[in-house]
Every structure is written in C-alpha cells, then in structure tokens.
C-alpha cells in the first residue's frame, strides 16, 4: 500500500518489482545484522553497491561509489582544509581515531561531525536503495570505516529515512535520476560569471553535460539526494537541462568474487588499513564467513524479525520508526 509509486523510469533490465527486491534484500540483511548484533562488513553487490560497516548490529559507516562518504564531504566542501586533514590522517587514521583527532584539533565540532556522519549515512543508504541490489553478504572487516559513527545508527531508522527519500522522488512528476541523468546549463542559465546564490552557482559551474548528481556530489562534497532535488528545481526553472543519460549495467557476485573454498577469517582489521582505498572498494578476495546460525548466500532474517518483504515494508512505513532528526534538504536546511 505504501510502496513507492513508479515515478522513476523503469530500469532496462529490472522487472516491475526491481526496486522492491532491492529494498527487501537490503532491509532484510540490515535488520538481520541488528537482530544478531553482528559486526563486520556487509558487502552489497549490485549497482552502485558498496559496503555497510556494521558494529554490534548498528550501522557505523557506508562506503559506496554512489554517494560521497563523510571524508569526501568534509574535504571537497572545504569544511576541513586539506593540510589539516592530511596531518590528522597521518597520525590518527591507522588507529581509527580520525574523528576524535579532527575534533581535538579544532577542525570541526563534535556535534557538527555527528551531523555530517549521519547525513552521509542517509545519503549512502539512499544511493544503495535507489539502485539495484543483487545480494548482500556478511564478510570480515578488511578496511574499517575511516570516520565511524559512534554509537552506530539504528538500521531501522536508516532504512526508514532511505524509504522516505525514495517516496519523495517517486511522487515527483518528472524526477531527475541522480545516477544517470547528466546535466548541462539550461536556456535560462545566466551568463557565466553572474551569481545566482544558494549553491546554484556551484552546480552551474560544473554543469557541462558530463556530470550526474552523483558526480557533482563527489566534486562539490554535497549530498546526492539534496542535489537531485535541486537539479529538479533548476530544471523546472530552465537553469538546467538533462543532456544525456548513462546506461547502467548490473553486476552479480559471480563477476566480483573468485570461486573457492571459504577461508577462515579473523575479525581483526589489518593494521594501517583504515581509510585506504577509494570509496566502494571491497577487499581483493571477499571471503565467505558463516555468520551465527549458518547463512546461505542470501541473508536470512534472524529469529523474531519479519521474514517477508511485506512485513519489512510495513515496518518502514512513514512514522513507524522514531529516530533522530537530520536536517532535511527539502526544507532548505544545510
């Protein structure tokens, strides 16, 4: 009943319930982690796919090529200057103390950092849920999160926030696809050099027909969802136009993981591994690990959790899960 309406154009290779399957797979995996209080890396195979860092059943971080993580947001937005960031990284990243050290050095307030971390989580879950998920697989932590949210976020809250964003986009008559639609200056865009204010200048400066909202998010250090809404507003006003579309292909775990025996793995992250690698890069050899209860390839919900998609979607109905507020891009807050 409350399923997102098909406001988004159908993907070329997904059936009518492609998004429902995506949401259900991801939701079941995360809620299962929560129920079993698992810790580790939940690999999400698909497009864009990524890794959800789970700590004690909660979500501490998400790495995905689909949305900029908090490190990119802090750096590219200019919120934390690069030299300060580099110095902090050098001393603190390997010990997992990046966040604390940034605060200690006065580069960001602890409250502000928490806001950025939560906003990045919401943006990343939106990127995962609005794409395609083929499979979720719990694996050992190869590269722990550089800036983990501590205490970690409640997965139910995070999923509900992702669903809310999907619903907002689905309710729009002519939404912009954040992962496919490349934008160009529109016929009403002011001449180069004149200022519009409100962040639109930054967008127009990068609108050369080659960037999607996701691409601009990484370039500007802005949230992808907020940019998507802004793109839609600017397109309505003739400031932007969609000039081309990216064609998206699916990926399955067969393409990524090598065949072989599951190897015994340790929960100890490799020393000095924190922060290495671009967002979305899983370990070179993802290894299957039997989680509590012995998991098959598809994550099974733990006992007491909803076992069906419809039960999961009822859980994610608006207002069903109270959670901390995060500033909403719809209201224009930063």
């Amino acid at each position, binding site marked *: 009943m409350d399923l997102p309406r098909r406001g988004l154009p159908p993907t070329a290779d997904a059936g009518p319930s492609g998004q429902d399957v995506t949401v259900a797979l991801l939701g079941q995996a995360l809620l299962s982690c929560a129920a079993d209080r698992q810790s580790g890396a939940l690999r999400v195979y698909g497009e*864009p796919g990524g890794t959800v860092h789970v700590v004690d059943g909660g979500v501490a971080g998400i790495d995905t*090529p*689909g*949305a900029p993580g908090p490190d990119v947001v802090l*750096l590219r937005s200019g919120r934390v200057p690069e030299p300060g960031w580099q110095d902090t990284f050098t001393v603190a990243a390997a010990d997992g103390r990046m966040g604390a050290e940034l605060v200690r050095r006065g580069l960001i307030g602890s409250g502000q950092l928490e806001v950025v971390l939560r906003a990045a989580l919401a943006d990343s879950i939106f990127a995962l849920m609005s794409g395609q998920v083929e499979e979720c697989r719990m694996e050992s932590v190869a590269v722990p999160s550089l800036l983990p949210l501590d205490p970690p976020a409640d997965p139910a809250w995070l999923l509900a926030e992702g669903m809310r964003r999907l619903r907002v986009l689905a309710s729009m008559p002519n939404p912009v696809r954040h992962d496919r639609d490349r934008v160009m200056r529109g016929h009403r865009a002011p001449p180069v050099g004149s200022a519009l204010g409100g962040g639109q200048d930054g967008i127009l400066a990068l609108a050369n027909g080659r960037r999607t909202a*996701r*691409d601009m998010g*990484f370039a500007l250090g802005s949230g992808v969802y907020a940019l998507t809404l802004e793109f839609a507003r600017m397109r309505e006003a003739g400031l932007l136009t969609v000039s081309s579309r990216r064609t998206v292909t699916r990926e399955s775990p067969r*393409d990524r993981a090598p065949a072989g025996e599951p190897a015994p793995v340790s929960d100890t992250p490799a020393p000095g591994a924190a922060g290495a690698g*671009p967002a979305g890069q899983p370990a070179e050899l993802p290894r299957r690990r039997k989680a509590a209860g012995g998991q098959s390839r598809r994550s099974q919900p733990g006992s007491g959790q909803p076992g069906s998609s419809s039960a999961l979607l009822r859980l994610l109905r608006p207002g069903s899960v109270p959670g901390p507020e995060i500033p909403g891009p719809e209201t224009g807050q930063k």
Partner: protein
Amino acid sequence: MAEDALLAEMRSLRDRVVGIADTALASRDGLIIRADTGDIDPEYLAAMAAAALGLGRRMASEVGKGALHEIVTRSSGGYVATYAVGPTALLVLVGDAGLDSVRLHRESQITIKNLELLLAGDGPRSSVAAGLAEPSLPIGPTTPEHPRSAVACAA
C-alpha cells in the same frame, strides 16, 4: 566506422564504471587519437600519461615483476590510471574519489581489448597516424568545446 567505434568504446566504459570523469586514447608518444574529456586538456593529459607509462614499464621490467597492468596516480580528490593498448597506444582515464576501482579493473580489460582490436583491425586505417584526430577538431558530438586549461588531475 573505426573512429566512432573507438569513441563509443570509451564512452561505454564511462557508462559502465561509476566515477570515471574523462578518458583519452593516445599514441605511445602522447598524441591524441580520441578524447572524451570535459575540463581537462586531453593533449596535456596524454603527454603525461605517455611519460608515466614509459617510466612504469621500465620500472616493472627492472624489478622483474612481469607485464605491466596499469599506472595509477591516487590523490585526495581522485585517480588517474594509464593502460597500454596494444603495442602502439595507451588509454588514460581520470576518476573521482568514488571511482568503483574493483569494477574498473574488470571493465577496463574488456575496453582495452576492444580498443586494441579496433586499432589493429582496420586495414589501411590500422596505423596510428591515420587514426589521429586533428588537434583543432571538437572532441566529440556531445562534448562541448572548452578552452584549454591547465590539467587538473583531481576530478
């Protein structure tokens, strides 16, 4: 036609791998064959990539670690990767901080192979010199011309 097929192959890679911003196909001495770039000067990019590839190949040979796969420059804002394409050409691509590098490793191999076949399989057009675009031509049908600017290796 070989020219469209080269560009189509490069654009397909940019579609398949999230986070690739620009690509350029060039000869081993750094002259552009095809470019799918935005604000980056493709000729400057290709010249540097050629130098990097030459140095990288000597390095790999010197340490005896087998055939070179790729040369990578990693920065806080992005990623530049250079690959040999057959014996006469190279492919350079620029990615942002969210580049899906795992998918890139797989997809780039397919693209490199296809580019190699396209460059080799065209009869009288197979020489690299015949495939060079004139420097003054626009980059491609959907890429607007941009004033040449200093190369920025971060996306």
